[in-house]
């Protein structure tokens, strides 16, 4: 194992090359899209690779298996602007470099979340990581459309509150 690791040829690494490509496809110039074409993000300022990496990174920072990629894409879309281009390019390059040290071609090439999380842990104190993570706290969780996935009901005043709608309806105690 030790020898293989050094050469970057762990079994996981080998597997991951096949797997990673399946999750996201570069859908023509300037777009990345889900392979099932359920959603697509236009990429203007940053590269498709950078956008795809940011998306995976967002998923790995706040993984919710019942929350689709499209919500994460919305949360990171704001990085695709000229002002953020340099920060993103440098950050993703450093992330890919950290992935290489861990024996993968790049971050996306690491197929298991555990491996990617280990790579993220190695950069978690960098301003790039902290910026992306901090932005997700509102960028992801403040999207009203994901609230129902968590059961959160949001605004209630317009429906008269919960006085007649189950504020005390717990039945399992």
């Amino acid at each position, binding site marked *: 194992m030790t020898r293989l690791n050094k050469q970057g040829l762990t079994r996981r690494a080998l597997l991951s090359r096949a797997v990673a490509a399946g999750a996201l496809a570069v859908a023509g110039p300037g777009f990345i899209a889900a392979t099932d074409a359920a959603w697509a993000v236009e990429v203007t300022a940053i590269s498709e690779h950078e956008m795809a990496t940011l998306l995976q990174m967002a998923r*790995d*920072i*706040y*993984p*919710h298996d*019942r929350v689709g990629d499209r919500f994460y894409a919305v949360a990171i879309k704001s990085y695709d602007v000229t002002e953020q281009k340099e920060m993103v390019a440098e950050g993703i390059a450093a992330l890919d470099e950290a992935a290489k040290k861990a024996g993968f071609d790049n971050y996306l090439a690491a197929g298991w979340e555990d491996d990617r*999380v280990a790579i993220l842990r190695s950069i*978690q104190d960098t301003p790039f990581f902290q910026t992306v*993570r901090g932005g997700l*706290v*509102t960028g*992801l*969780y*403040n999207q009203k459309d994901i*609230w129902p996935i*968590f*059961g*959160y*009901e*949001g*605004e*209630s*005043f317009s429906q*008269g*509150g*919960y*006085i007649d*709608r*189950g*504020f*005390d*309806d*717990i039945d*399992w*105690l």
Partner: protein
Amino acid sequence: MAKAAKFELTDDSVVVIVGTGAGGGVLANELAQKGVKVVALEAGGRYLPEDYVNDEWESFGQLAWVDPRTTSGDWRVAKDFSGLPAWIVKAVGGTSIHWAGASLRFQDHEWKALSTYGPVEGASLLDWPIDAAEMAPWYDKAEAKLGVTGVGGRARLPGNNNYKVFEKGALALGYKDVHTGNMAINSADYDDRMACQQTGFCFQGCKWGAKWSSAYTDIPRGEATGNLEVRDHAHVARILHDDSGKVTGVEYFDKDGNLQMQKARVVAVAGNSFESPRLLLNSHSSMFPDGLANSSGQVGRNYMRHTTGSVYATFEQPVKMWRGTTMAGIIRDEARHDPSRGFVGGYELETLSLGLPFMAAFLDPGGWGREFTTALDSYANMAGMWIVGEDMPQADNRVTLSNTEDKFGLKVANVNFSDHPNDVAMRNHAYKQGQAIYKAVGATRTLPTPPYPSTHNLGTNRMSERPEDGVVDRNGRAHDVPNLFVSDGSQFTTGAAENPTLTIVALAIRQADHIAKEMAAGNV
């Protein structure tokens, strides 16, 4: 309704009040009711129930004080929220728009912390110069004003889902003093305000007006007397004084950013415990080089924020804790002083819920990965409680002037805070009890959550018998300056275990009585 008063900038017969929150808003109305002319200056804008929004971040953007502040010390807030040491409001009505409404009297012994607990190493404990017997009638008035439930013949609120989980666990552990609290939230129509509709956005401003806030009670009632003028978007920059050392008025930036000067017979400061000492410190002069009312060197010191923390827990089945009142019940058994637990003073446990967006921000600030997200995946099955206990005053936990300046070029407050070992011991005890409560109801996971940016800010202009020990006397009057008063939580000598606002309000009603009498007697 009488037309709200308008006073001239040159009118030196008025009482100027800085800030219109729980302390300033009540003082303004109480004085106006007694015929005293008042100009209340408020840095924020005006928002009423129709303006409040049932949305955590949007409401934060509407109401929160987000002007710069800086932090230091070893509290985790300084790391996770370095520019936001407190979560408080900048608006007419102040943080009484945000507050949850828990309205508890101090326990009798808490007025005498030093005598009761004895000296504690590293802590600057002191007895208040007033006591429970003296405060009792003022508490009665405050409870009647706020419509507090569970006292004065007012029924308690019904318990919501979050409360039911909490109550069951508490009773299983043998706790006895467990109920839906003493809340400034109407359980039935009272004082022209309707009953709580259990909408569950108490922190975002009650859209029904069921919860008391000075924004839509004391302020408009004071204005209706014709004796109160409230100027919003008026940020007070400094307090001015004459050669005799009496204050003569204030300088403030108006809504257009122009500097104005309002003359005054009396000035009362009620900007909450960061801004009040900041204003006194920024008002330094050749006569008062260390800041106004600061001959003791105590202005800004002994900042207290209560020993807090939260415990959330997940269960097999849904709780939906966000439904209904945010603070829906209390356990008081641990509020007693019982040093056998390893600390002096006590703490309350109160239910609390956050919506999903705030939960993501506050559950484990900086946390990420599955340890964090799997907890949120169970959000609907979560119950939550908040710890609020007496923290130790410490001289070096203090507000000073930072080198950072705000948009007016005024030095902002730096807030330095580190826990005292007593605070840590108390918090750990409370975490253990909180987790045990939820485990007794079958919690699948418990989450001892770190303190949020401060909501209770106390002590930075402490009340003391002797001038060398504090900033203000038993009436909140500055020891150094006869016509300067402090009217907010910064007067607190010690913090007690209880949520502070009922006491702030009781002190403000009492102070209004004192100021009016002193004015009538020609003493100020």
